[in-house]
């Protein structure tokens, strides 16, 4: 197990390096002088010289990369052009909000999706199954940002039950688990939950149907060890894969929250990215992406390790 763990970590390191290289390259594929891209248009000459000294834009690329990486590892991702504040602090303020949103969306999506999928797999080829499969196809095909808009139309504009934007009266930095705040969370979380819901439903359905079909389960059912035992058995076998899918989905939501957060003006990392794009704020863009991507890589690693710990059959490196 330890060997597997070290092997897996060693495998991840070049990936992380690759991710860092891609993020580094972002500033350089942007049209124009990279120095200009990372500074506000009215930056003073001294500031420009300072940046030049730190990042070395006139040096060969490998050296530039190492300089940038060195600072990044220490937590310095430059300053946002728009706000002037360090990117790192902006990102970490926002991350918490996105985490709340992603976690709720994952739980909702997973619960509902799991339920649909389980029922569909259990009653294969019945009308429940067909309905569940329709819902899951819809879940995968619907543009979730549009769904968000539709929900806003229904619940905010027409019915005025829930607010359309924002994360509550405290702005982006205050959050409490209190109805005043939670009512802001409902619509975005439900919107985002649709994505994992479709996938989880499909996965769970396939798993359940597959397990039920295996001969020893048919044997169990034939012997009359009906439902409760079979249920437990199914859950035990399906759990590792299902958990893995859930973990990964949450990662996707964290990384892909930009569209929903933009619709609802939810002050998370996605919203931050949207702002960065709108304002051509390259340091903020680059830094946010780096943090999100690294988070996703680490999450993948954790899910992999957890899955293997739960199901030793997967341990073959």
């Amino acid at each position, binding site marked *: 197990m330890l060997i597997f763990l070290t092997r897996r970590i060693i495998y991840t390191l070049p990936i992380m390096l690759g991710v860092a290289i891609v993020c580094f390259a972002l500033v350089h594929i*942007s049209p124009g002088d990279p120095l200009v891209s990372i500074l506000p248009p009215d930056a003073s000459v001294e500031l420009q010289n300072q940046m030049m000294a730190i990042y070395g834009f006139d040096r060969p690329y490998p050296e530039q990369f190492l300089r940038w990486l060195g600072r990044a590892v220490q937590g310095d991702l430059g300053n946002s052009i728009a706000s002037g504040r360090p990117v790192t602090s902006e990102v970490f303020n926002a991350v918490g909000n996105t985490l709340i949103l992603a976690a709720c969306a994952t739980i909702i999506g997973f619960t509902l999706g799991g339920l649909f999928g389980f029922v569909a797999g259990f009653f294969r080829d019945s009308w429940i199954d067909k309905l569940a499969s329709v819902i899951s196809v819809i879940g995968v095909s619907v543009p979730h940002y*549009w769904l968000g808009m539709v929900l806003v139309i229904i619940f905010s504009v027409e019915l005025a039950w829930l607010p359309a934007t924002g994360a509550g009266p405290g702005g982006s930095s205050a959050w409490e688990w209190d109805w005043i705040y939670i009512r802001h969370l409902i619509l975005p979380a439900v919107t985002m939950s649709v994505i994992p819901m479709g996938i989880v439903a499909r996965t769970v359905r396939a798993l359940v149907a597959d397990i039920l079909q295996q001969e020893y389960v048919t044997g169990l059912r034939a012997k009359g060890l009906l439902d409760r035992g079979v249920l437990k058995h199914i859950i035990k076998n399906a759990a590792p894969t299902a958990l893995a899918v859930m973990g990964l989905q949450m990662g996707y939501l964290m990384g892909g929250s930009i569209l929903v957060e933009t619709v609802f003006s939810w002050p998370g990392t996605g919203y931050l990215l949207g702002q960065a794009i709108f304002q051509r704020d390259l340091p903020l863009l680059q830094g946010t992406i780096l943090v999100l991507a690294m988070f996703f890589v680490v999450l993948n690693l954790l899910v992999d390790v957890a899955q293997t710990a739960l199901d030793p059959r997967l341990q073959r490196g």
Partner: protein
Amino acid sequence: MAVAATDINGLPTRDKSPSYWASVGKRFLKDKVAVGAGCVALTMVLMAVFAPWVAPADPLDGSMMDRLSPIGSEGYILGADELGRDMLSRLIYGGRLSLFMGVTPVLVAFFVGSAIGVTAGFAGGWVNTITMRVLDVFYAFPSVLLAIAISGALGAGIVNGLLSLTVVFIPPIARVAESVTTSVRKLEYIEAARASGASGLRIVKAHVLGNVLGPIFVYATSLISVSMILAAGLSFLGLGVSPPNAEWGLMLNTLRNAIYVQPWLAALPGVAIFITSISFNMLSDGLRSAMDVKA
């Protein structure tokens, strides 16, 4: 070669069996849902292609007096947008860019990704390892994030949008290609082909591609709907297509503030995306089912 033979009783024996794709086609046509979805998808495509003949008005021509006319108003069957342009025409014309931005990246990624994946899969060894590791780096990004990262860095514009989407779709296609090729490579008929003295390239052309491109293609079609949604999403954020072009994602963006005034009008572009996306999805599913059964 294909001379009709007769059996003992003088009855003609069938001497040519249907090719693989013909039997796939037959099975596909039996699936009513898939055929229905295919028709819808085809309709959307045709409407987009023949937009100038189908649309009632000029999509760029707006009359500020009629701005945000509701659905069903006089002269504007589906209403008018925030600059007074006819929604129906904008939607029809919008299909052109939306479909183009959805299909093109997948198409390009299909060719590039297949080439990379089949090569890596067939070559094996360190070529395979290095190629797949590099692809893994791109795989490490959630697709939305990668698309936005590249697009955001390059700036708005159709070409930049296409470029970033293509880059997003190459790794998954290459992965599928590599996986299918690797499993085919182990089969005995490839060994027999090698034993015949054929060069690697010849074996790939004659034996591998025919067996591999089918599954890769079906996988690629399942990506079309994702690509459309992503492309529209880029425009929604201000990347990709820029005004005054008609494109569904961009229209959702510009109509956002109108949801308080004409909510259902503002939702229309999304309906178009949804219908197209779901029909392509079901079409792709149907195709996969038709190919799945080993005849």
